[in-house]
């Protein structure tokens, strides 16, 4: 301890201690000189003595750093190229990491996010992301390990004078206060008022809604707005930085107890069998998630005793950190199994994205490594001189590596700026919520520096070793570096090719159903508290009115309208292969309205009981012999008879080739959750106004969501469009870097062999022979790199299989197109400098040195 202290003192007072040491040694010399003794270099002896302080490395590092700065300043062209190359490689990584940081690492801007837990229902057989409101109330009353339990129901509300529905969060009264929500104007909800709030019809506006819809009216507090045809008083406006715990942009917050006021007849607050509320809890100081989970488990067991049918066997609440964007991500889902496959999907895609951006960095590093090697040749004289005046190999290596490190740090800074800018542009240009702040935090800075250091190890170390050993003809290393670059950029190009193919397939191939003329109407009868009988009469009335309207070709019902947000997946294990069965409850006109062909058997008929129509892919998977008609299909407790086989309609999961569909005839219990599908015989945009009027005439209390399937399709397309664009951009950068690398290498090879070329030409070599002489040494690494790249892409794209809209991840067109693009670029890149070889004048060449 004290030794460390002394060491630091030596560092801080280095000058004084050095002077004292010099003085000591000088005196020693004086005395020894009297005895007639000779001695060596004072400077070296002193340096050796100073070694004991343990700071020599720092001195040397300072020296090296100063020298490196001078060297880099002297060749600005090289420095700029190197820093830009690195900035591209590092910037892409920083942007990708920034995304990850924003979504998974950075806590949400709420009070003490680290003590918030999100709870979801689990049992060995089932899962549900939401809980019922009565259950939440029970947990809130009885929990001891949580200081607060809060929750919300997400829904959409119609605001008078606005076509688009609002995103509304019906929250428990303590929600805003518990999250420390900053309020710009007025007040939030009184946290103690859950009992009284039912009579209050109050609303808190989001900052962006206040700006866009109310022109930032400073006297908005106290004014009345009309929501779902009911009046509500604005009591506050949240600050721009507040978004709550849900992803996306919430427009309004309302007390959950006032939900039935806006959705007349809603049973959200009383029914324990409907999961409609997201639930969070805040840990007491010193509490742990394990403790909270254990307590919740025993509370759930108590609930099950009271309501045996509403809770599962061995049910518990699984907790996860709630204060992050990740925890709020994902749609409402309920089903059998563990419910982990959604998460798995996110992880796979993130892993793939990570690999792709790392490839860019690897290509940049390979490029820079070659650049440094070439520079080593130019610095041959300098290195030779330094060796001859006594620089050891280790010292030289350290000096060269310090140069790389300095370059890397410059690259890191430039990359951080580039990455942060990219991230900001991306966030601004997508409909990300306003509170998502893309400016870099310490994690991003640390990441940029770390990546820079790793890059310096990658591109700087081996060349430094080669140069310090004065082995300049390091052809093998060059070839490995160029091969690596080729492989890396090849993988990126192939993945880009696959995504472009997927986009193309999605745009121009038949998804198995006809969506362009169809409008989906979701009356959200569950939210309005419709019982099955009322729902039946409402839907019948609505359908009848629509059928009679002009421009309507046919009308159908479905619990899961194609391309919608809802999905019910039944995972079935057939012969060890997992099949995701997307179930849908439809009426007899569904297949006609969606133009899904019935290939065998028949569609549903009114009066069918316990029948099913399966998609062709499902039939093939379950009954490979083609004798599916009349077979029994067990689904949970009931068995259904297969009456027909429909064409494959990738209506639920466009992108997933493993998804299969299974249809059942919608019964009374399904009706409150059903949507109406209308096929238009005219342009579908022109009938939406008519649909709105008809729905209002049917029941003015119901405010349906109306969407053209074409719009929904566009929304689905956006994701793949964006990723195709991003990966193509990455592939382009990688290709450019690799081509630059090839140009440099070939040019170098030509300049090295000018004399040999001259002699060969003088002896009568023809141009093709000269070219092959120059290019032969590169053909092998390029071909090997290509092969490795193809293999790597085949392995990596495995992860992408479920996102490719049915395009095989080994799609030959994507592979050959990418390889062709690369081959053409590589040939051009090598021919440009190689032409110089043809212009060599034998006479000049022979006179050369």
């Amino acid at each position, binding site marked *: 301890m004290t030794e460390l202290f002394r060491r630091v003192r030596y560092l801080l007072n280095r000058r004084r201690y050095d002077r004292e040491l010099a003085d000591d040694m000088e005196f020693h010399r004086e005395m020894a000189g009297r005895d007639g003794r000779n001695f060596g270099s004072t400077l070296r002896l002193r340096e050796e003595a100073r070694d*004991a302080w343990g700071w020599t490395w720092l001195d040397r590092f300072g020296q090296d750093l100063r020298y490196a700065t001078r060297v880099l300043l002297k060749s600005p062209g090289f420095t700029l190229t190197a820093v830009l190359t690195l900035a591209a490689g590092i910037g892409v990584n920083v942007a990708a990491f920034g995304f990850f940081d924003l979504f998974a690492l950075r806590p949400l801007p709420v009070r003490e996010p680290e003590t918030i837990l999100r709870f979801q229902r689990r049992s060995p057989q089932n899962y549900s992301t939401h809980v019922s409101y009565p259950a939440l109330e029970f947990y809130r009353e009885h929990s001891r390990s949580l200081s607060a339990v809060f929750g919300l129901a997400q829904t959409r509300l119609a605001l008078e004078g606005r076509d688009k529905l609002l995103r509304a969060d019906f929250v428990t009264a303590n929600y805003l206060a518990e999250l420390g929500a900053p309020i710009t104007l007025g007040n939030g909800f009184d946290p103690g008022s859950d009992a009284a709030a039912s009579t209050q019809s109050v609303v808190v506006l989001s900052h962006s809604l206040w700006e866009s819809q109310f022109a930032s009216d400073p006297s908005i507090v106290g004014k009345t707005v009309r929501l779902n045809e009911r009046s509500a008083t604005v009591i506050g406006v949240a600050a721009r930085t507040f978004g709550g715990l849900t992803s996306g942009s919430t427009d309004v917050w309302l007390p959950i107890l006032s939900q039935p006021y806006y959705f007349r007849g809603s049973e959200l607050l009383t029914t324990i069998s409907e999961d409609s509320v997201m639930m969070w809890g805040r840990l007491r100081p010193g509490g742990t998630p394990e403790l909270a989970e254990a307590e919740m488990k025993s509370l759930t067991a108590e609930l099950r005793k009271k309501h045996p049918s509403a809770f599962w066997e061995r049910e518990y609440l699984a907790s996860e950190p709630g204060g992050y964007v990740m925890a709020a991500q994902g749609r409402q889902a309920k089903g059998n199994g563990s419910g982990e496959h959604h998460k798995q999907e996110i992880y796979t895609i993130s892993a793939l994205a990570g690999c792709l951006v790392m490839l860019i960095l690897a290509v940049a590093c390979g490029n820079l490594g070659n650049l440094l090697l070439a520079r080593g040749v130019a610095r041959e004289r300098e290195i030779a001189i330094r060796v001859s005046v006594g620089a050891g190999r280790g010292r030289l290596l350290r000096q060269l590596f310090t140069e790389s490190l300095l370059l890397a740090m410059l690259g890191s800074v430039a990359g951080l700026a580039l990455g942060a800018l990219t991230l900001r542009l991306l966030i601004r240009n997508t409909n990300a919520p306003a509170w998502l702040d893309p400016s870099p935090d310490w994690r991003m800075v640390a990441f940029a520096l770390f990546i820079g250091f790793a890059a310096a190890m990658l591109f700087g170390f081996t060349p430094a070793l080669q140069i310090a050993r004065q082995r300049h003809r390091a052809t093998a290393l060059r070839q490995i570096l160029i091969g690596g670059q080729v492989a890396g950029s090849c993988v990126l190009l192939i993945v880009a090719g696959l995504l472009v193919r997927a986009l193309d397939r999605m745009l121009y191939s038949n998804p198995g159903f006809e969506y362009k003329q169809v409008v989906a109407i979701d009356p959200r009868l569950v939210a309005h508290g419709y019982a099955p009988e009322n729902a039946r009469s409402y839907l019948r009335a609505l359908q009848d009115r629509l059928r009679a309207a002009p421009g309507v070709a046919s009308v159908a019902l479905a619990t899961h309208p194609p391309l919608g947000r809802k999905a019910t997946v039944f995972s079935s294990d057939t012969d060890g292969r997992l099949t995701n069965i997307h179930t849908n409850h439809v009426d007899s006109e569904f297949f006609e309205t969606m133009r899904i062909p019935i290939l065998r058997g028949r569609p549903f008929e009114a009066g069918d009981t316990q029948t099913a129509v399966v998609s062709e892919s499902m039939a093939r998977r379950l009954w490979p012999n083609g004798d599916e008609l009349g077979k029994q299909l067990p689904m949970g407790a009931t068995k259904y008879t297969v009456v027909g086989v429909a064409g494959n309609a990738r209506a639920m999961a466009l992108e997933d080739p493993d998804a299969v569909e299974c249809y059942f005839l919608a019964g009374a219990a399904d009706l409150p959750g059903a949507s109406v599908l209308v096929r238009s015989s005219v342009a579908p945009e022109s009938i939406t106004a008519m649909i709105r009027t008809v729905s209002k005439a049917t029941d003015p209390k119901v405010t349906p969501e109306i969407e053209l399937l074409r719009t929904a399709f566009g929304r689905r397309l956006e994701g793949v469009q964006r990723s195709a664009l991003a990966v193509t951009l990455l592939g382009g950068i990688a290709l450019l870097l690799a081509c630059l690398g090839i140009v440099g290498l070939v040019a170098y090879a030509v300049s090295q062999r000018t004399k040999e070329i001259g002699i060969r030409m003088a002896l009568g070599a023809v141009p093709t022979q000269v070219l092959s002489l120059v290019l032969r040494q590169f053909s092998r690494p390029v071909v090997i790199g290509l092969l490795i790249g193809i293999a790597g892409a085949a392995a990596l794209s495995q992860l992408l299989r479920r996102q490719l809209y049915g395009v095989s991840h080994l799609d030959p067109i994507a592979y050959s197109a990418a390889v062709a693009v690369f081959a053409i670029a590589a040939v051009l890149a090598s021919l440009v400098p190689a032409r110089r070889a043809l212009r060599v004048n034998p006479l000049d060449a022979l006179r050369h040195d």
Partner: protein
Amino acid sequence: MPKIDMPSGALTLLILRVLRSGPLHGYAIAQRIHVLSSDVLRVEEGALYPALQKILLKGWANAEWGISETNRKVRFYRLTPAGRKQLDSELSDYHRVHEAIQSVLRSA
């Protein structure tokens, strides 16, 4: 008689030992070792000063200003209590090893 250079571990021990009788400056340390070993051991500058720096850093000795016999201002090294303890432990280690070696040499 050939001059013998010091093994580095032994040098620290010898420096601490000669400092036990009182503070000395660097040159005097070298001289004292040389004389006491009957001119057999010779401490070179290149070994002495790194060893002294190490001793200072470990806190086994302090340096203080004094006047040399040639009337020059120089630094004298003085043993600290920690240095005394270190010397004792190194001495006992040395004796143990020495005796062990001796007994091997005698009996083998």
